[in-house]
C-alpha cells in the first residue's frame, strides 16, 4: 500500500494505523518504511497502538493450544485401522 500522496514526507497517525500489517509483513516501500519508523519514534500514542496490535497477534496464537476431543481421536484411530485392513 502506498502511504499518502506521492510527495508526502510525513505520515500522520490515521495513515499509520492503516499500514501496520503492511509494515510487519515487509510490504512497505523503503521510503514508507522509514516514514513509518520515524513517526513511531516520535509518537507515543501510535507506539502504544502498534504495541497493542502486536500483542493482539501474539495472543491470537494462543488459541491454537487446543487438543482434539478424545472420542474424536479414538474414532479417527478406528478409521485408520479400517484403512489398513
Amino acid at each position: 500500500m502506498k502511504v499518502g500522496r506521492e510527495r508526502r514526507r510525513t505520515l500522520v497517525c490515521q495513515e499509520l494505523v492503516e499500514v501496520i500489517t503492511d509494515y510487519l509483513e515487509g510490504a512497505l516501500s523503503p521510503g514508507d518504511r522509514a516514514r513509518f519508523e520515524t513517526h513511531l519514534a516520535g509518537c507515543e500514542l501510535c507506539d502504544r497502538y502498534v504495541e497493542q496490535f502486536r500483542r493482539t497477534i501474539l495472543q491470537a496464537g494462543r488459541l491454537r493450544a487446543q487438543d482434539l476431543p478424545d472420542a474424536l481421536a479414538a474414532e479417527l484411530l478406528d478409521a485408520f485401522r479400517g484403512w489398513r485392513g
Partner: protein
Amino acid sequence: MAFSRLRPASGPAPDGDRDSWSTVQARLVSLRSGDESAFLALVSEHGPWMLRLARRRALSEAIAEEIVQESWVAVLRGLDSFEGRSSLRTWIFSIVTHISSAQFNKEIRSVPFSAYGTEIAGPSLEAGRFQNASHPEPGSWLTPPPAWDESPEQSLTTHEAQRTIGSAIEKLPPAQREVISLRDVEGWSATEVCNALGITETNQRVLLHRARSRVRLELETYFGAEASG
C-alpha cells in the same frame, strides 16, 4: 518417532510448510505398515486445526466432527497420490473444504468467494478517532488508544481475555475471520494462506489487517470495561 521432521536437502516445500514431499513419503511408509503412532502423530499435528476449520464452517459441533472424520478418510485415501506440489496442510485444507461442501452442503455456511474482495473497503479504525481537516494537525489522534492496564487479573493471558479474542474473531465477516484464523491463530505463512484460499497477497494483507484491527479494538473495549467496572 519413526519419521524425520527435517527438511530434505532439496529445500523446503514451496510455501514453507515443514511437511516436504520426502517427509510425507517417509510418513506414508510408516502409515502403510500400520504404525499407529505415526498416524496419531499426524492426527495430533493436523487434527486440531482441521477441527477448528470445520467449526468455522459447520452449523453444529457434531457436524464439525463428522467433517473431520470424513476428511481423514479422504486424506488416508489420497496420501498415495499427494505429490507435494502444495504443502501437506494446504492439501488437507482443500480436502476439508471439498468434503464440507460436497457431503455437508446443507449443514455448513461457506465463505462466498466474493467476500475476499468485498470485505476490504473503508478504514480499519473509524475516522472519528482522528482530528479532521479543520484541526492544525489533521489525522492525529482525537480519541487515542487507552493504555491497557494489565494487572494479573486483567492481563491478556487470562482466560477471559482469550475468550474475548476468540469471540471477536468469531464475529468477524467470514473472509476476515478465515484469514486471521489461518495466519494468527494457526500460524500459517502468508503464501500458504494465499494458496489455500486462492487470493492475492495484497488481498490477504488487507483482510488480515482489518481483522487484527477489529480484534485489537475489542480488546480495547474489554480493557476499558474492566477499568471502569
